[in-house]
């Protein structure tokens, strides 16, 4: 491993990837356009782990695909800026972007089996990245591939290089995928639900591995997940997404200690905790995520919120930033308007 220039500015606070006002609008012929991501802004610095948390349909995965330039060429409109070290990734041609992907920007997907080529041995898939971006010959790249597999904790890497994906277990496949993503030492790594398909004991191994990699190499990590537990252990900064927008941002400890958005508050109250009190009923968030959320003239979360006020249904809440934290809410938890009473048992009326 070479010591790289950015390692020095790990703590300096210079953003490595800065996403500003990113929007992705999908439009099918003859249908209403649908904003999957709507004005999302966040930054990530070297050595920092930023979490994007949300449920299905919150736009977290589309955000990452847009940054990586992996959305289909047609049927969508991406606007905004993704500034990577002075270059706007969204403006790059597909050829230039291909040079960046795998080299400067790495990505790990949720399902390792469908992300790996089933008919190509693992070793070849790892060396492919090195051949493409570093111009190495396959012969020269093999020892490096072996080193990568060893580094991500795959036992007996020499034998595994020749194995096909189906011969590996789920956890090993995810490790192989991480090895591929890290082969060229990318400066930004995007992990999209990297442990969702894995068992908890394997998840713990992978999270440990990702945490170590970020610490040791100064990689900036964007962690996309629905699991607040994973976020609590790994991320420095957390962005909570709902209906395509970031509704709350905060440093890990602040956000979990005092969530201010009713959605964040509700999420934390609805998860059974391993160390919590048993027998107390959970406090669910009523209803479910609607398909097309109206941010236009209201807060999209208002129909599910336990303390909506009039303005929530008539005005779009702005995104108010305050240092490390930010909030998009008219009536945050603990504010003068808000009552601290817990919501009643949920009525199901979301049809």
């Amino acid at each position: 491993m070479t010591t790289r220039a950015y390692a020095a500015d790990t703590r300096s606070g210079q953003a490595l990837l800065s996403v500003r006002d990113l929007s992705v609008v999908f439009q099918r012929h003859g249908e209403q356009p649908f904003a999957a991501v709507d004005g999302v802004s966040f930054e990530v610095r070297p050595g920092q782990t930023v979490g994007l948390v949300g449920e299905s349909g919150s736009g977290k995965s589309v955000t990452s695909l847009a940054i990586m330039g992996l959305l289909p060429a047609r049927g969508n409109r991406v606007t905004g800026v993704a500034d990577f070290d002075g270059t706007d990734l969204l403006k790059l041609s597909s050829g230039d972007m291909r040079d960046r992907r795998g080299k400067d920007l790495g990505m790990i997907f949720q399902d390792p089996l469908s992300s790996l080529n089933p008919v190509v041995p693992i070793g070849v898939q790892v060396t492919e990245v090195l051949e493409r971006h570093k111009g190495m010959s396959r012969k020269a790249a093999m020892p490096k591939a072996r080193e990568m597999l060893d580094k991500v904790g795959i036992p007996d890497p020499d034998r595994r290089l020749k194995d096909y994906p189906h011969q590996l277990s789920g956890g090993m496949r995810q490790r192989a995928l991480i090895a591929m993503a890290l082969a060229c030492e990318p400066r930004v790594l995007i992990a999209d639900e990297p442990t969702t398909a894995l068992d908890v004991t394997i998840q713990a191994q992978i999270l440990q591995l990702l945490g170590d990699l970020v610490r040791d190499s100064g990689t900036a990590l964007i962690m996309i997940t629905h699991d607040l537990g994973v976020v609590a252990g790994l991320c420095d900064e957390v962005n909570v997404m709902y209906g395509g927008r970031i509704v709350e941002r905060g440093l890990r400890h602040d956000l979990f200690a005092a969530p201010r958005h009713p959605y964040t508050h509700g999420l934390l109250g609805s998860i059974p905790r391993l160390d919590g009190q048993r027998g107390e009923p959970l406090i669910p968030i009523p209803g479910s995520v609607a398909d097309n959320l109206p941010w236009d003239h209201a807060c999209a979360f208002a129909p599910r919120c336990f303390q909506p006020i009039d303005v929530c249904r008539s005005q779009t809440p702005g995104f108010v930033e305050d240092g490390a934290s930010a909030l998009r809410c008219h009536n945050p938890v603990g504010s003068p308007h808000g009552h601290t009473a817990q919501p009643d048992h949920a009525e199901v009326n979301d049809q």
Partner: protein
Amino acid sequence: MTAAAEQTHAQPGDVLVDVQGIKVHFPIKKGVIFDKTIGYVYAVDGVDLQIRRGETYGLVGESGCGKSTLGRAILNLEPPTEGKVVFDGTDIASLRGEELRRKRQHMQMVFQDPLSSLDPRQSVESLLLEGMKAHGLVKDTKAANARLRELLKAVGLPAASLQKYPHEFSGGQRQRIGIARALAVDPQLIVADEPVSALDVSVQAQVINLLEDLQDRFGLTYLVVAHDLAVVRHISDRVGVMYLGALVEEAAADDLYAAPMHPYTRALMSAVPVPDPVVEDRRERILLNGDLPSPANPPKGCRFHTRCPWRQPTQCDTDRPALRVVSIDGVPETHRVACHFAEGIASGELQPHKVEAEVVDPHLGESDAHGSLIGPATTVEVTDTP
């Protein structure tokens, strides 16, 4: 279920389901014209458990440990290879045909994925009526309609849902339909296989609360099969932890979480992320190396010995431990562990050793025994996605 009732060992009448030495082995076949059995997947390999009337028994474990197969075997959806399942005094495993079908009225199942377990071409009304008709519970239309409304109300769906089809509902609502269908025939036991894992976090809590409400109202007995320990702990009175086809620990939910004794349970619990950074920073993780060995070729002796940080040089790799009551002060009789050295581990006398040396390659054993013949195609049937 009160704590007192759990402590005193149940009277015979209290046990609704008594599983005795149940085994489910799936043959691994090979050959184009003549199927030759070349081995077995030992999905469930000798489990004894009792479920008492009115309680919730939680079964946890990782994918491939056999928990779903066990749940299905209890309902005889998967005929057991060996062993008995005594349900309310009758051995289910020996029933066939009409007798079994009738018995099914009293034991229902809720599946993981509500979309694939509901017929997309049946309206909710027809879905709910089907089971009632099959068991002769529909006397006249008027009474049936009243019953349908009552069911929908019980699971928190509007009455207008009757004419709708499954695709018109959200995931959480579909799961409510699945629960209503199970309730329709007035069962005593409901086996719920991963009832909330396909749902969004915010909706999970709705369904968990619903299951608890229904249990109180109708006096149901649950067997909940899940991989999420936090969910299982929340809803269960007693919990059984499975590893490679067998129970490794069984205890009242609070006892288990307060003092897990089997090394696997400890590792499993330490691996579950807690949504609280303060707790996360302080936690000590027991990281297991390697993966679950293949259930087609389980390790000899204690099945966990290949990954166990507390493995001892004797006994662990030769004798298979049985579930037993440990002799430690303060540990109730209901807390049973399948570990030879549970006492030493609990007292701290035995310390975990470095796990680096314990790296296990699950495929080594497999290829030693059968070459590369045990394709995933066969084993996939018994593993369940988390």
